[in-house]
């Protein structure tokens, strides 16, 4: 072995120690400059190969280049390892207090519980093939009473019960006038529900002068009272739970014949009338049933008012129903006082925020 080759080996050994012992990227750079830089001994040797005797040129060149390659590779490895360590140290320094509160997202707004309930009901009926119809709140006596077969002395017509603008113009007392407006515009079959505000001249613990109703109307050649029952059973189960049953009680409404009131089996006591601890159920008052809406088969006289639009009372029939949205929301969410719906207290509205509907 030539003296030069031995020197190269000693350079490599010395450089390896320098690289391995470099604790920082700066020290590593020093080691690189010292051992692999242009002014380094190894570089000098490689540059001087041409001056060597011919028999030494080969072994010295090979050893020199191999050593340089190995040192460069070592240097890279060491650099990567030092960089990783430096990053880790930096990240360690950047520790944060993860227990501080997160930055708030956009503050949570919410849909009004009446809107949520209205949509939930709308969606049940849209699923059963109904469209959503709307109509004016300032309505004519013709649509609100006359065409709905209200006798001339029906108490609801009284100025003590209904808000009037004139003898002929009033605030609608129910969403039912839209039945007539829809039938005037569309020949049968008709399947619509009608959500909206309605007004009655009442203001006490259980009545507000403005509230919300949803009306339903299904008219075809062969829609039956049994179909009404089935439809409202589906509705009751969708809103109040799959185990619910409905009960029909005969009643009287001017615009349906026969007329019924619909009760749903109490979802608090499962229709038992009493709770597990044996106490009386306060939701259904121990009856096991809760009244939820009024309904019936559309009175032939009502069709008589829209006969021209294709509603021959001898050929078509159908059912109508109407419910109070507040009542459904009150039953579902246990809201104790109707007025809470209209105070718009953010602490109330916020309870019906994301994920409730």
């Amino acid at each position, binding site marked *: 072995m030539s003296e030069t080759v031995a020197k190269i080996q000693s350079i490599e050994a010395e450089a390896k120690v320098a690289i391995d012992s470099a604790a920082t990227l700066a020290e590593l750079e020093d080691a690189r400059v010292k051992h692999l830089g242009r002014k380094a001994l190894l570089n000098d040797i490689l540059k001087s190969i041409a001056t060597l005797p011919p028999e030494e040129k080969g072994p010295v060149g090979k050893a020199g280049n191999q050593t340089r390659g190995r040192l460069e590779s070592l240097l890279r490895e060491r650099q990567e390892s030092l960089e990783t360590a430096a990053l880790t140290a930096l990240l360690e320094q950047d520790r944060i207090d993860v227990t501080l*509160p997160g*930055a*708030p997202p956009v*503050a949570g*707004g*919410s*849909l*009004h519980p*009446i809107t949520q309930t209205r949509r939930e009901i*709308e969606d049940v009926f*849209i*699923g*059963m*093939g109904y*469209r*959503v119809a709307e109509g*004016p*709140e*300032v309505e004519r006596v013709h649509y609100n009473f006359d065409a709905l077969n209200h006798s*001339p*002395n029906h*108490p609801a017509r*009284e*100025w003590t019960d209904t*808000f009037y*603008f*004139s003898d002929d113009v009033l*605030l609608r007392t129910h969403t039912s006038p839209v039945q007539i407006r829809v039938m005037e515009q569309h020949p049968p*079959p008709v399947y619509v529900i009608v959500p909206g*505000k309605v*007004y009655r*001249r009442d*203001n006490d613990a259980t009545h507000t*002068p*403005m509230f919300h109703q949803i009306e339903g109307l*299904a008219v*075809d050649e*062969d829609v039956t*009272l*049994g*179909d009404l*029952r*089935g439809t409202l059973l589906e509705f009751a189960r969708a809103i109040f739970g799959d185990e619910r049953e409905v009960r*029909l*009680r*005969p*009643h*009287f409404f001017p615009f349906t*014949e*026969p007329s019924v009131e619909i009760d749903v089996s109490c979802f608090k006591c499962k229709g038992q009338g009493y709770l597990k601890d044996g106490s009386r159920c306060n939701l259904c008052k121990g009856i096991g049933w809760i009244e939820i809406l009024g309904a019936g*088969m559309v*009175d*032939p006289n009502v069709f008589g008012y829209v006969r021209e639009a294709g509603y021959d009372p001898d050929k078509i*029939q159908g059912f109508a129903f109407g419910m109070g949205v507040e009542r459904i929301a009150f039953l579902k969410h246990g809201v104790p006082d109707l007025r809470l719906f*209209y*105070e*718009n*207290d*953010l602490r109330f509205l*916020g309870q019906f925020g994301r994920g409730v509907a």
Partner: protein
Amino acid sequence: MRVPMTWLAEYCDPGMPAEELASRLAMTGTEVERVVRHGALSGDNFVVGKVLTREQHPDADRLSVCSVDVGEDEPVTIVCGAPNVDAGQTVAVARPGAVMPDGTKLKKAKLRGVESNGMILAEDELEIGGDHTGIMQLELDPVLSGRDFTPGTPLEQALTPGEDVLELEITPNRPDCLGVYGVAREVHAITGNELATLATGPAPSGDESFPIEVQNHELCPRFTARIYRGVKVGPSPLWLKQRLSAAGQRPINNVVDITNYLMLLTGQPMHAFDLDKIRGGKLIVRNAAAGEKVTTLDDVERECDEHTVLVCDGEGPSAIAGIMGGAVSEVSLETTNVLLEIATWNGPNIHRTSQKLGLRSEASGRFEKGLSPELQLEVQQIAAGLMTELTGATGVSPTIDVAGEILPATPIELRATRLAGLLGTEIPVARCAEILRRLDFEVAETAGGLSVTPPHYRAADVTREADVIEEIARIEGVDSIPATLPAARSAIGRLSPDQKLKRRIEDMLAANGYSEAITWSFTSEALLAKLSPGGAPVERDLLKIANPLSEDHSVMRPLALPGLLQSAQHNLARGADAVRLFEIGAVYAGSAQEPREHTAVALLLVGPPTAGSWRGESDPGDFYVLKGIVQAVVDYAGAQAGYEPVDAAGHPYLIPGRSARVTAGEAVLGWVGELHPLVAKQFDLPHAVVAELNLQALAAQIPDPVTYEPISTFPPAREDIAVVVDAERPAEEVLTTVRKAGGKLLTAASVFDVYEGEQVAEGSKSLAIRLTYSAPDRTLTDDEVAAARVKITEQLQSIGGALRGQ
């Protein structure tokens, strides 16, 4: 309608407890509000007592101190205020601990220094009659003779025991059920139990007559009368008093009590005249003259119109027909001869008159529903029994009957197919016939079903096949009908584009931190005046309610703002530090002749748009925050919003310099702006930003389906310029100029900074604008971009703009 169970059972015994009957009635169409217990005087503390001694109270002229035997070892001392109390009487006593009908619990008490161990009861306190003039002497009442009056005997035993009373809600189509007998008929139809007939009285013993003239049979289909002589007016017997009070009516005297009793039994009101006080010896039923005045029994002079029907005698009005009698011919204790009038009146006219006069009575409530014109003849016969029995009178005339044309009920065809088709289930024809017969219908079989004729008292309500089907269904039980679903051919459920837009806007607003409010559709002129800082009323065509509940709710809101401001006030007063609300609802304008309404989207922001945190404060809630929300709403409709100066006079509640009118093309959508500080002060708000858009106008902007535009695959060129313009120059104008000048290659231009200060001349501002250039088919060269910039620079000069640093 109160129906005592014992009275009901006299005509049809339901054979079941009141609670069970209540639910049977409810399931067949008669709603039972509740079952109450009448005769609360039950329990150990109500007993029979015997007054042993009576002495004058030492310190009170009107009080007596009695020693009363109540069945205990020692008599007790009771202080009594009744003038008629005396030793030897058998009386009803409430002992301390007794719960009186009004719910109060009786205690020992000292009355003017003398201890009283209970109370001696008067008729009204016993819930037997209305008499409170003196205590009731049990031994004197003939009905009670033979009862056990040993002191200490519970009153329940000595008197008639308490009973259950049904409180029914009778639907307006069933005036026949406004009488106990009508309810008995229902019980008969439900249970099949025997229905007793109504007892009629003896035939009249004379053939006296009385001249009666009915001028308008349309308003008075039938007027009947009978004459009784030898009437002795006095108190009614105990059973009648008890029955009336159980049914909720105060006993008065036997003649008046008979008329009330018969009304409660049959549903037919009637009126007893003192025959000798009918002036001129005749009765005339006629329309009032407009403005004619009548003094009614309650001593009030009432002014009539020409539709009011009066019952008059030879000298003038005596009663307002069907509503209230007059004082002229009232029955009094001196009355000996009575004319008993039983008539029926045109329902809608009675209703109208009672509305007009603001006068409702038990009678008018029944007449206005329209009573069968057959009923009067029946009830005259029933009345004859009670009049002779209870007043000692003799009927001296047959029924004097003045009637118009009375049409018999016509048969109605019931098709079995129609019944099955309407109900969705079959009921055998034989079963239908059975139900209808129980309901007193005449029934004959036909080829396809039945031919049925309703009884006269149902003839007004049951006129069509559907009505007959309802009768059958309710007795058979509508609840037994099986549940099916409609075939729903061609029914496709979906929301309209407008309805979808509304839902999307609601969701977007909620997701951006706005809570949905629902405020009253009503407002007031006073509240609206608060929206004008100068106090000058806002000139609007307000839609006013003719009969509002209160002044606060007398006007339909022309905008949703006042309700939202009140809600903000409510929330701030309860500690909220920020209020973000929206409401989507109708707003109104116009007149009763031409009312208008449209749906508004209203927004309110008080405080920061987002909650602050430990990382620092949120942005202030200013005009630009809410404009961003408004912009998003308009974007959701697919429209391009424009912003113009607001019409200050039309929106006095806004700060003109910090508000904008929102447009889309030609259409005005609404406005957004900061609330005028003087208005904010009215609602205790530190400040507020508000907006209102017309949802219908917005929905009209929904575009046809979007058509795809190619996306350039070549990288865009971006550069920023700073434009110095007059500080008053709107940014939108600068941008429009830039966009126009930039031509097709300029695909976007937006302001990203605004600077006013030392670096620019006073009265100027610098707008930093980011420009994006691109072409669909090539990468733009520096020359092309430079050329565009030159054009932009030139055009900016036309509005006084210069690139900064040039």
